């Protein structure tokens, strides 16, 4: 299916990350935005609102973030592509309904413009402190898909991908931006509508009394119907059977919840997206995501011009985590460098996947740190020194 031209503002633009986010959503066919306002996410709704009347989209400001996501889940069941946008404090409140969205297998997109926490922290400054929350924030077992854009253009592209994956797998998908990218203004090229691929929702077409809302297709994903089309069905956050009625036993728990995990884990190869630069001959690989990737690529360029073989692995999707690829690389390279705008979150995943095969160096920096690549460069130098030390030890041993 191709995009609805009404929502696609084809052309070359100069947009901020937040503006590009709204444009991406409209291009992807998003026609409902439910939110509670918070900095630094406001420009997303501002742009969405400005364009909504002409596109035929609806916007609602709820009384808090808990109900904002509830509104989005409801709108999605009426057949509208729906999203919400928030920042860290709001994301914390949304965790209850994120779990409900997973359990009800409701396609929707959550945009998180990360600012500095915990609590209210620094509401106008950037951080990447919500990355683990985006994976594990809601209770119970589930899998989720999370994107991390590093430029307004990527913001536009990834929001479209997020909507497509949410429809394909019937899950909430998150896009993790930050306060810096929110305001970063850059060229964004919006292609013509016929060049934008849209994943259509899978609908049940049978008789109205034959619909089972959680009867799974081969790939574990059940087809949906629109509320108001005459189908009568039940959905609940309790463990349920194909009919959507609660069944309180372990067999049903396995029957209901295991596929929620399998429908993502069995398809990680289709979902995971990474961008590799200069990996082939690299001795050191910088693993980065989001805004930090800009600094990582610059540091890589400088190190390369100084003759150090550095590569970059940029995660477009943070979750599911690219375990296999990192394990492969760990066997080849000497060290990974993981810069993050937090005190260490994704670095633990890198350590887990490299299983002691490569050194893992973590760099913690705030927004100011991203503006200065010196700490990444000195980490690169440190890995070189570690290699020297290793070489010396090997030679000493030979001598003995």
């Amino acid at each position, binding site marked *: 299916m191709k995009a609805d031209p009404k929502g696609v503002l084809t052309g070359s633009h100069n947009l901020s990350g937040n503006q590009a986010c709204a444009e991406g959503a409209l291009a992807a066919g998003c026609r409902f935005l439910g939110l509670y306002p918070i900095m630094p996410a406001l420009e997303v709704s501002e742009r969405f609102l400005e364009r909504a009347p002409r596109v035929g989209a609806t916007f609602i400001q709820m009384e808090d973030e808990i109900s904002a996501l509830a509104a989005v889940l409801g709108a999605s069941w009426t057949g509208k592509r729906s999203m919400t946008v928030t920042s860290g404090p709001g994301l914390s409140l949304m965790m209850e309904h994120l779990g409900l969205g997973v359990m009800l297998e409701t396609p929707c997109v959550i945009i998180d413009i990360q600012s500095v926490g915990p609590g209210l922290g620094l509401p106008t400054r950037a951080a990447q402190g919500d990355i683990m929350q985006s994976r594990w924030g809601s209770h119970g077992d589930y899998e989720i898909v999370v994107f991390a854009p590093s430029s307004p253009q990527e913001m536009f592209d990834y929001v479209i991908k997020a909507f497509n994956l949410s429809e394909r797998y019937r899950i909430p998908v998150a896009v993790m931006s930050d306060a810096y990218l929110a305001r970063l203004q*850059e*060229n964004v090229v919006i292609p013509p509508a016929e060049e934008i691929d849209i994943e259509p929702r899978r609908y049940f077409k049978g008789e109205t009394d034959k619909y089972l809302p959680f009867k799974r297709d081969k790939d574990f994903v059940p087809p949906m119907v629109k509320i108001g089309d005459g189908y009568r069905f039940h959905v609940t956050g309790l463990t349920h059977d194909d009919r959507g009625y609660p069944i309180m036993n372990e067999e049903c728990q396995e029957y209901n919840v295991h596929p929620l995990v399998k429908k993502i884990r069995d398809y990680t190869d289709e979902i995971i997206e990474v961008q590799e630069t200069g990996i082939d001959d690299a001795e050191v690989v910088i693993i980065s995501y989001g805004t930090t990737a800009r600094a990582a690529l610059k540091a890589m360029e400088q190190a390369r011009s100084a003759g150090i073989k550095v590569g970059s692995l940029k995660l477009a999707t943070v979750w599911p985590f690219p375990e296999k690829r990192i394990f492969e690389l760990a066997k080849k390279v000497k060290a990974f460098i993981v810069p993050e705008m937090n005190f260490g979150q994704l670095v633990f995943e890198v350590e887990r996947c490299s299983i002691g095969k490569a050194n893992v160096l973590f760099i913690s920096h705030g927004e100011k740190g991203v503006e200065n690549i010196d700490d990444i460069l000195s980490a690169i130098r440190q890995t070189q020194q570690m290699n020297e030390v290793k070489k010396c030890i090997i030679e000493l041993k030979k001598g003995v």
Partner: protein
Amino acid sequence: MAEIRFAGYGGQGIIRSGIIVGKAASIYDNKHGTMSQSFGPEARGGACSSQLVVSDSKVLYPYITVADILVAMSQAGYDKFEAELGDDGLLIFDEDLVEPKSPHGNIKTFAIPATRFAEQLGKKIVANVVILGFFTAITDVVSYEAMKKAIPDSVPEKAIDLNMKAFEHGYNFGLELLKKQKDPQK
């Protein structure tokens, strides 16, 4: 590639200046422009700056490493960012608001009473556009034509005329200054 810093205080249109030049470069001059900004929680009066990287190819890194141009509209902004200006850099400042030290390296300085001009034109708020006109004349970052297209896109409709007047005023002042510098006798 040019790395540019606009510095001043909130309310002067510092971020808007970055947006206008970024737009002019990226949409009308077919270059790549990346603008980032930083400000405090206050709406007006707080320290405020925007960084702009303009390049013929895609901008890899959106931050300033060594600034080529500093446009200063407040003393605090000048004091904070003067050091990041490269030895061959260019300093543009509002002469009524900034008192520069003697410059390091071969820095060239260009002064304009932008806020005073803006007041004479009718509204202090267009001082940033006066300085943008001056900027367009002095530097080769963006073309005059591109700026003339980018400004109406970026200001409220009722203020377009005043802004264009402010831009022309700054631009002509810049051209005359350059002429005088080339030919000091006249």
